């Protein structure tokens, strides 16, 4: 057996030697670098994963609270109208928004939505006149004519009128005739659904903006002016507007309009 053991040991060493020759070594510094990279990744990924999970959970919880138990149909969002700025303005109290003449009709989600505060007794989240504090000039854009030198917007201004049903708050309504305002050549157009995607304003080209308005006339925009021209047009996301009659009291446009 001793003889067999000696031969076995020699064969085993020969096998290990053959492996040594085949092994492709990297350097110790390379191993250290890889270990450090992995450690850093782990240190970053784990908190990131936790944060993502927490945010996702919080968002889901918030959405469930906002839409879930108040909707008559599962998966149908509550009628809302908002913009990031409007939410940030911290308004309190309901108001209604009326689309302008020829404006888009409320979508299916809005079809069952009554005026603010109706239905299940909870006030609906709808845009308030305080939007006009964020955007000094609110208007329903009816058409866009693009020209090499810039363009022209056909707008109907959005007026803020008192809401008798909700003292202390107002509602936005279309007011006055169609007006034309010049569009600056390098104007920025930011859109949400339905012209764009989602509820967060995202930039598009003026050509796309013109085409989008043609498809969806009467969308509500906040307009910034500079040098007598509209330099920034930001669509205010509307979800579930309730029709209302136009009223007087248009906001004052910059001098010259």
């Amino acid at each position, binding site marked *: *057996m001793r*003889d*067999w*053991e000696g*031969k*076995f*040991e*020699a*064969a*085993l*060493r*020969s*096998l*290990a*030697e*053959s*492996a*040594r020759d*085949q*092994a*492709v*070594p*990297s*350097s*110790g*510094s390379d*191993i*250290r670098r*890889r*270990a*450090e990279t*992995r*450690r850093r990744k782990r240190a970053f990924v784990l908190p990131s994963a936790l944060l993502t999970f927490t945010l996702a959970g919080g968002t889901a919880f918030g959405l469930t609270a906002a839409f879930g138990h108040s909707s008559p149909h599962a998966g149908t969002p509550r009628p809302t109208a908002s913009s990031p700025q409007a939410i940030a303005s911290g308004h309190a109290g309901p108001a209604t928004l009326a689309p302008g003449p020829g404006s888009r009709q409320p979508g299916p989600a809005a079809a069952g939505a009554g005026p603010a505060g109706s239905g299940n007794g909870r006030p609906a989240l709808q845009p308030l006149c305080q939007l006009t504090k964020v955007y000094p000039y609110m208007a329903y854009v009816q058409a866009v004519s693009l020209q090499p030198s810039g363009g022209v917007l056909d707008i109907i201004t959005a007026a803020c009128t008192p809401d008798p049903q909700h003292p202390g708050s107002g509602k936005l309504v279309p007011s006055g005739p169609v007006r034309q305002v010049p569009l600056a050549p390098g104007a920025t157009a930011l859109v949400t659904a339905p012209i764009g995607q989602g509820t967060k304003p995202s930039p598009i080209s003026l050509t796309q903006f013109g085409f989008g308005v043609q498809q969806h006339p009467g969308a509500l925009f906040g307009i910034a002016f500079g040098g007598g021209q509209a330099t920034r047009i930001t669509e205010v996301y509307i979800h579930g507007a309730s029709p209302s009659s136009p009223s007087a009291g248009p906001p004052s446009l910059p001098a010259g309009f």
Partner: protein
Amino acid sequence: MRPPLAPEEFDDLYARSFHRLVGQIYAMTGNMADAQDVVQEAFMRAWDKRSQLTLTQSPEAWVRTVAGRLAVSRWRRARSGLKAVFRHGTPEAVASPGPDHAALVAALRKIPEMQRRAIVLHYLCDLPVAEVAEETGVPEGTVKARLARGRAALARYLSDDMLEEAANA
């Protein structure tokens, strides 16, 4: 208490022992690619735990133990992952032993994993029974039994001619 392993000390340890450890783990696993991978992984873990490594008398033994455990867990995963092989086909080819060593590798694969480990530590790493017992975490008597059973099993699969052929390869 010594300070943590310095980068130069680690590099030196790696340069001295990498090939030797790959050979030892290859003898345990019979798979060259796995042997390289687990040894490199063990060294990476060694760098992560370099403060503990200085406390051990032999960093190389620490790396070998970790690499051996990694190899075992890989083998177990591979065994339980046979379904994936059937679904996705065989993994890419790995270096196989030369014809002179094929019989030896095949015989080593036939004996139980713990017997193989004891055999390799004792005959290839030159560890006495007591140290094999320490490294594998079992009593010396168990190591002796594993060595005896492993030798007997291997003797059935490996003739003297086969061994001589492998030794002279």
